[in-house]
């Protein structure tokens, strides 16, 4: 089903073109342009919702999500260190990637839920932003300990003022301030074109994912297994947390998807600066080469089924 959503087909097209070593490339500027549009659109969508919600009501959700962002890398780290036999820095960096989120995966889930007519708490982008950050800090501490060497000021700057966060948060604030009517004039670009832009983005993601295959071969099967098992585990955590927070089934599936997604933009950039001794190829191979394709191709429907089943059992 999801596999037939045209945007997924664009991902497969990019993947195939990449694997067949096609000359197809998207200029870096085009990739940045579509990323910027997606980040702003997602932020704006979430911001509109925030206007409708009493902030206090969101606080528990926000804190719970922050906690999840701290927890997930702490779970992943020992697995990578002992089972995966990775160097400490590499284990910490990969853990940070999986504790954080992938906006692209979220966007695909939004599109999938829309076609499936699944509703979810619209303020999800707020949780997305919150989930992006804590894992990075955990990752640095796991790699370094709380050493004085770490320039936390620089880290904070890198993390909070990175492109992704600024555009998401900025979109949230603009959407919150302007409200649905205020945004109607810019809706044609940010909302009507959303799925088309997402299609172009996924075409490029397919090309990028294909480029990881070589490294994947080299670093053996562990990354492959971890890149699929970890998201499944995170999805369970996310579903459970959503249930405790009293989210809808759709909201639970969405939070599961966020938990299951692995960063490939914010975290790599931050790790490269803050934990340079970690080999960036390892984490990118896992998150871009394994987890992203897994999530967009089969993960998202699985997470929804999981949430539905869980809510049926637990009674949500």
């Amino acid at each position, binding site marked *: 089903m999801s596999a037939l959503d045209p945007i997924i087909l664009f991902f497969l097209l990019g993947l195939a073109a990449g694997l067949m070593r096609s000359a197809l*490339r*998207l200029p*870096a500027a085009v*990739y940045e342009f579509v990323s910027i549009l997606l980040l702003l659109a997602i932020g704006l969508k979430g911001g509109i919702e925030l206007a409708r919600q009493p902030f206090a009501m969101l606080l528990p959700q926000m804190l719970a999500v922050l906690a999840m962002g701290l927890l997930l890398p702490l779970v992943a780290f020992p697995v990578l260190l002992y089972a995966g036999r990775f160097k400490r820095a590499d284990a910490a960096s990969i853990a940070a990637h999986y504790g954080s989120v992938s906006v692209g995966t979220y966007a695909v889930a939004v599109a999938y839920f829309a076609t499936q007519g699944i509703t979810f708490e619209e303020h999800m982008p707020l949780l997305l932003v919150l989930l992006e950050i804590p894992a990075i800090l955990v990752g640095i501490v796991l790699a370094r300990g709380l050493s004085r060497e770490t320039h936390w000021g620089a880290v904070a700057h890198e993390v909070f003022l990175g492109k992704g966060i600024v555009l998401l948060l900025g979109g949230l604030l603009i959407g919150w301030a302007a409200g649905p009517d205020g945004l109607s004039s810019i809706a044609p670009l940010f909302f009507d074109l959303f799925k088309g832009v997402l299609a172009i983005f996924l075409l*490029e993601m397919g*090309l*990028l994912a294909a*480029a990881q295959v070589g490294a994947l071969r080299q670093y053996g099967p562990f990354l492959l297994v971890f890149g699929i098992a970890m998201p499944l585990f995170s999805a369970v955590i996310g579903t459970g947390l959503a249930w405790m927070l009293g989210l809808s089934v759709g909201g639970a599936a969405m939070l599961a998807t966020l938990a299951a997604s692995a960063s*490939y*933009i914010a975290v*790599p*950039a931050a790790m*490269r*600066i803050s934990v*340079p*001794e970690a080999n*960036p*190829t390892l984490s*990118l191979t896992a998150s871009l080469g394994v987890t992203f394709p897994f999530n967009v191709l089969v993960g998202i429907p699985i997470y929804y089924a999981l949430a539905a089943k869980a809510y049926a059992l637990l009674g949500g």
Partner: protein
Amino acid sequence: MAQSNERTRKLLTIITEAAVEASLVRDIERLGAHGYTVTDARGKGSRGARNAGWETSSNIHIEVVCDANTAQAIATHLQDHYYANYAMIMFTMDVEVLRPEKF
């Protein structure tokens, strides 16, 4: 190669990951260079291909014209702080500048 010694300076070329541009140019200025020039690049080396498909995999090509001591200082600094962890190469050559006082 340079006729007159006073007009001769070092051209230091650094090719490395785009991710370190900000901190790198900060260091270069701190170590006494009066300027630098950056161009975007792609390439391949011991750390594999960096094809500039997107930020994470793109390189920068930095040129610094400076005196021999500054070049030495920068080289040493890079060796100590960047070489171990970043895709990076560096080389120097002699150049003849038009306004020596600038560099």
